């Protein structure tokens, strides 16, 4: 075609509009992606408060533990409890149990979560071995909840607890075991009694 200018090299009007279009689409994609990804990864930052659950009369729990043991030394007993579990938008009655032991002293109860730190089965208390055995893959814990064999990566969770009007209350945390979790093996038997204000 006579008189037609050859295509100009460099920054043409077409390039400019392409650039505008790409940037606009990029911004829109970002506007969609940020809230979408944000909603998906919210749970990674979820923090929630513990709920306090009544376990029973301290005197009764103490008596039960002493009865399970010998010679005035308390042994492990199952202490069942019920509570209202709030799971996101669902409120449901729930029940579970804790392994309680009367150990005397300034922090008289030692309360373990029964949840195996491997994959979450409930461990069994085996009085003859003085150990907790997991029925799922054979993890073994000492009476203090320290993992001594099997695939369990951590000791059993320990409940924080408090004494109110002669009753024992435990704090159910929003953790894997439902209790406070030890990362290593020390302190061997943490005292988690919460003093009343």
């Amino acid at each position, binding site marked *: 075609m006579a008189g037609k200018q050859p295509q100009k090299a460099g920054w043409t009007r077409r390039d400019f509009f392409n650039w505008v279009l790409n940037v606009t689409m990029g911004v829109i994609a970002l506007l969609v992606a940020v809230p979408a990804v944000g909603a998906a990864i919210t*749970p*990674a930052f979820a923090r929630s408060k513990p709920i306090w659950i009544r376990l029973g009369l301290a005197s009764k729990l103490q008596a039960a533990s002493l009865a399970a043991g010998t010679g005035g030394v308390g042994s492990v007993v199952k202490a069942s409890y019920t509570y209202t579990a709030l799971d996101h938008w*669902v409120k449901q009655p729930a029940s579970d149990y804790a392994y309680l032991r009367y150990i005397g002293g300034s922090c008289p109860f030692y309360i373990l979560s029964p949840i195996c730190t491997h994959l979450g089965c409930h461990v069994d208390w085996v009085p003859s071995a003085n150990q907790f055995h997991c029925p799922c893959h054979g993890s073994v814990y000492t009476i203090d909840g320290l993992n001594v064999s099997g695939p369990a990566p951590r000791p059993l969770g320990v409940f924080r607890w408090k004494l109110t009007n002669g009753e024992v209350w435990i704090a159910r945390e929003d953790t*894997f075991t439902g209790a406070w979790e030890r990362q290593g093996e020390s302190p061997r038997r943490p005292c988690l009694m919460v003093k009343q204000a």
Partner: protein
Amino acid sequence: MFTRFVRWLDERMMVSPLWRDIADHPVPAHTNPSERVSAFVYCFGGVTFLLIIAQFVTGMFLAMDYVPDITNAYNSTRYIMDHVLFGKQLLSMHNWGSTLIIIMVTLHMLRIYWMGVYKKPRELNWLVGVTLLLIILTFGFTGYLLPWDEKAYFATQVGVSFVQYVPFIGKALFNIIAGGNHIGAATLSRFFAIHVLFLPALLLSFLGLHFLMIRRNGITGPY
């Protein structure tokens, strides 16, 4: 009648060449079971695709009566089994279909492996195929939780717990997959969304790529 309809359609959107390309083109004799019975091994992928279509259909109708909420998921599953006409059959077909798909993709993959089909230029399609396998396994994993019975709950608890062992981000990963610190209400709704919305979209896109590449590369020569 049908020919006239096709001609009418062709005048408007030219479907015949498309149809020929998708479903009515000749295939080599060595892949034709009516020529040689042992060629049935070439059917595993196609059978998987048919099963996937069946899963889509049964799944859509199951979703009419299913509720992805922890207080009602189990009840609605029971309702499908006990009170919906052919509901038990529908659920069983979806259930058995998922198992058959796993078997069929495994056979399909073995055929590809043994015949060396993954070699250049088809290695890209092998990668797409492996992605499809992962998508299908995720379908199975997320679908397993939906009836919300004990087996589903604890299988998912064990399965999701594996990711905790990823270094550094294990805990965050667990929370993102489970929707919280525990397997619970958020896990079920997440898994449901993944099972019926995210994965089907992914599956269809990758199946499209898979089939497109088969047509581009053609079928491998006699084994």
